[in-house]
């Protein structure tokens, strides 16, 4: 299962049309069920890298393939995104936001008349329960704490059940216990077969739950050494400043 590549990125330059590339010659291959972390200092292009892989920003050059296909041929719902500010519909309930993850499964009739199937409702209910927010089902997400909102975003990804989840610093500014809970949820997504590419600003934490950690340094994406001490040092003296 872990051998078939979910995502392969070959010699891709990343950036915006005007100006120099932010990141050059990115080569990356993600296997099914892997959790891969990306670290690097602020403003180096981690989010742009994630948005390029999501297909939101075109790659300047090179080739991006999802399960061997071009990005235009990806089946609906196979890639999920958890942005830095989570991308929740602020004036809607927890239930609504989680149900949005099931929208790619809805047929035309269901989506035009807003009639979710029993299966979609059931998977929403299960996902909300698994992140411990059953009592908040009908609460607007803008009334939740930051940690609870992150759990809603995770539940939405659970319902969507994509092959690839791109998460942008979804553990930032959380207390230790909440971050631990979130890591458990991320692990459970991977155990269900999703591959996770996560941007994480803390390399020490990244090492604790990621199968691999990559670092953006200069304009290159490099594979980080498997040494937690060195990672820690990088964070404290080098990684965070480069």
């Amino acid at each position: 299962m872990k051998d078939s590549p979910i995502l392969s990125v070959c010699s891709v330059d990343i950036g915006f049309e005007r100006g120099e590339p932010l990141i050059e010659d990115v080569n990356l291959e993600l296997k099914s069920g892997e959790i891969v972390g990306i670290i690097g200092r602020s403003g180096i292009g981690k989010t742009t890298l994630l948005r390029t892989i999501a297909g939101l920003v075109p790659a300047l050059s090179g080739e991006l393939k999802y399960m061997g296909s071009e990005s235009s041929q990806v089946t609906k719902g196979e890639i999920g995104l958890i942005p830095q500010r989570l991308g929740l519909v602020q004036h809607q309930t927890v239930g609504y936001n989680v149900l949005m993850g099931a929208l790619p499964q809805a047929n035309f009739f269901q989506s035009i008349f807003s009639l979710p199937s029993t299966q979609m409702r059931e998977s929403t209910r299960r996902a909300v329960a698994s992140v411990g927010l059953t009592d908040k089902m009908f609460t607007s997400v803008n009334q939740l704490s930051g940690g609870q909102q992150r759990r809603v975003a995770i539940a939405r990804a659970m319902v969507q059940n994509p092959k690839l989840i791109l998460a942008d610093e979804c553990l930032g500014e959380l207390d230790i216990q909440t971050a631990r809970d979130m890591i458990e949820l991320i692990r459970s997504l991977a155990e269900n077969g999703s591959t996770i590419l996560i941007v994480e600003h803390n390399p020490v934490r990244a090492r604790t739950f990621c199968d691999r950690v990559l670092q953006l340094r200069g304009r290159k994406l490099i594979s980080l050494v498997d040494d937690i001490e060195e990672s820690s040092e990088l964070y404290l003296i080098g990684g965070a400043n480069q």
Partner: protein
Amino acid sequence: MSESPHFLQILVQRPILRSSLLLAIIAILSIYHLDISLIGLGDMFSNLLIITNDAWPPDFSVLSDRASWAYPPCNLETDWMCSPAVLGMTQTLEIAFLATIFGTILSLPLAAASATNISPPLLAQSMRQLLAALRVLPSLIWALIFVILVGVGPLAGVLAMTMYTVGYLGKLQYESLEGVSREPLEVARTMGLPRWQVARYFAIPEAANSLISQMLFMFEYNVRHGSVVGLVGAGGIGWYMQYYLEPFKLYDRVLALIIVMYFVVIIIDQISLRVRIRFIDENELVRKSKWRGLIIPQLDSSDD
């Protein structure tokens, strides 16, 4: 000779003087070009005196006497309920209500297609041109067109106000949709959802409070302008005013109708303002979802 450079020096140093001088020159040139003479102002005052004498005191029998000539005919027993003021104002409110509802239904998809964060640039530009074209004609001209097309009566009023509502509300709506946070739309795009689903399930719910506030504002606007379209035969209180103006010149009754309309418009404005504040108050610590259940009720009730 010595004053001239001094004046120019002041002019150069003070931009407000330069701008004022420029505006004054343009205003004088415009008056000259339009051939406006003060003799017209003299006529205005003498005519105003005649009309005031005829109009004062207002004849409030328009609130009590049955209008047997009303269109559409009034079959109610009570006379005051079939009076020109009650019938006219009721028709104006109904025309405004229908035009706001139909206008909103038509403008929302056009607004979504005009928003550059939802639609491809070419489609967005085309739809914006369409909305701009609808706004070019004021509601009065739309009323004239529809009176010719469908005949005298409230239908022409509803159609005219609807057309104007689509153009005007559509612009407000696409500006609101373009202002929504980028991230929910990116989540939807990454899922691979088609653009109409991105608009329906992410952009419109995110902008819903503004959209509802704009709809209420449009209703207020339509009530005010609903009286104007009646003047060309498109129904509402304006039609009753026109009946008294031509050929009878019963200015006292027209004044009574204007006073009634004034008070109704004030009441509608106040109610609408109070309701809109509930949607637009940014000072609330947590802005609650006021619109839930109005647009997508089925999704909300899915999890009980």
